[in-house]
């Protein structure tokens, strides 16, 4: 499993494109939103938590179809299915690799974009913490969507349609952690619920994703 993780990470970084693309998209979004809504600091500061979370979510979405697509095309997925590790493990590793190459970098650059969006000073810690807790859920849920659509030739658009409604609870709790943090309110409840979604999704969804992969390989 560690070998698979290493392989996926190397592929993601060396193949180019996928790795930097999400980050670039996130940056562009943080530039476009102020251009669209106007440069007033109060307005930007108020919408910053939501915009940053939606941006992270969409940036995550960009690289989802690459999770299984290449392995599906060149047949490695069939080999992985017959490998001694269970499919659930493969899927979990894939999700982890996706998070390490997408969710983690997004979390790390988010504070910089927070400056652009005039985020409240008290909210930076909560922004990083909520993304750190929430983006693994985005990767795990996204892996499920990718597993469902892996056999389709033009699965990309369908993938977003399937995955985005599933992102709703994560987005709500994640963004409300940051909003409440900015207002100086207590963030315990949304933070705990966000962590609960991530842990629950990471524990249960690999089974559903593995089932979907097996059906697609049949």
């Amino acid at each position, binding site marked *: 499993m560690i070998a698979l993780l290493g392989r996926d990470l190397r592929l993601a970084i060396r193949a180019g494109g996928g790795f930097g693309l999400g980050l670039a998209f996130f940056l562009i979004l943080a530039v476009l939103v102020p251009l669209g809504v106007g440069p007033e600091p109060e307005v930007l500061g108020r919408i910053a938590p939501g915009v940053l979370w939606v941006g992270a979510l969409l940036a995550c979405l960009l690289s989802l179809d690459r999770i299984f697509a290449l392995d599906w095309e060149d047949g490695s997925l069939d080999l992985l299915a017959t490998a001694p590790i269970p499919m659930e493990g493969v899927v979990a590793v894939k999700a982890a690799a996706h998070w390490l190459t997408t969710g983690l970098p997004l979390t790390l650059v988010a504070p910089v974009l927070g400056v652009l969006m005039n985020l409240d000073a008290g909210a930076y810690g909560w922004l990083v913490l909520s993304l750190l807790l929430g983006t693994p859920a985005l990767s795990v849920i996204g892996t*499920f969507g990718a597993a*469902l*659509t892996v*056999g*389709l030739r033009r*699965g990309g658009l*369908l993938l977003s*349609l*399937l995955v*985005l*409604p*599933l992102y*709703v*609870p994560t987005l*709500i*709790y994640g963004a*409300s952690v940051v909003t409440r943090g900015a207002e100086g309110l207590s963030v315990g*409840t*949304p933070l705990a*619920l966000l962590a609960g*979604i991530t842990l629950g999704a990471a524990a249960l*969804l690999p089974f*559903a994703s593995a*089932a*979907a992969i097996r*059906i*697609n390989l*049949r």
Partner: protein
Amino acid sequence: MSLWEYANPKKFMDTTGPLVPWIVGAAALLMAVGLIWGFFLTPDDFRQGSTVRIVFLHVPSAMMAINIWVMMLVTSLIWLIRRHHVSALAAKAAAPIGLAMTVIALITGGLWGQPMWGTWWVWDPRLTSFLILCLFYIGYIALWQAIEDPDTAADLTAVLCLVGSVFALMSRYAVWFWSQGLHQGASLSLQSGERMAAAYRWPLYTCMVAFGLLFVALVLIATRTEIRARRIKALQTRARLREGAA
């Protein structure tokens, strides 16, 4: 004699065939009674005026929108566990009806909200969770249409329905956390007694039963169409094979 006998497509077709006209008739009759009673024979509400009558479309369709998803969940489970094709086809047939019910509930809600709340749409928890439900229906239908192999499509959509149900439920509570409501509480409730005058309650019950029957009729017709489409496909394949052999 067990319920599972009806999982046999032949048995299903034979049993439902004669039933469909009766159910359609009952649905039409009750719908006519309920809607005419509700629209023309009830008094104007003292505050809402005649807009109160939208309830006779809004509440039954909203109720069915949720119930149809639950029905799809049950039939998806039956398909995954016992591999009965009729079950998977019923889930497929129910989805567009559920989407239509969701859209009816959203539109009638907007029509009522405009004069009453002064706005077509607010980001109220109930309204928002219905919009999310609408997205779930669209995704489910899109997945059915995207996959060519029927058994793969049935399997994958069933998995999506299971996972989607969990997330739809979570979204519902997440949305309550996110915004406080403008929508009133339940109009009908088993626990908290009557909140609605009897003059409105009985036509509403009639409409709810009528919508339920309408759904049963539509889903039976659609499932029968799906089964027939499958048979045609199977016959065509067989004919092609025979031509090839000859």
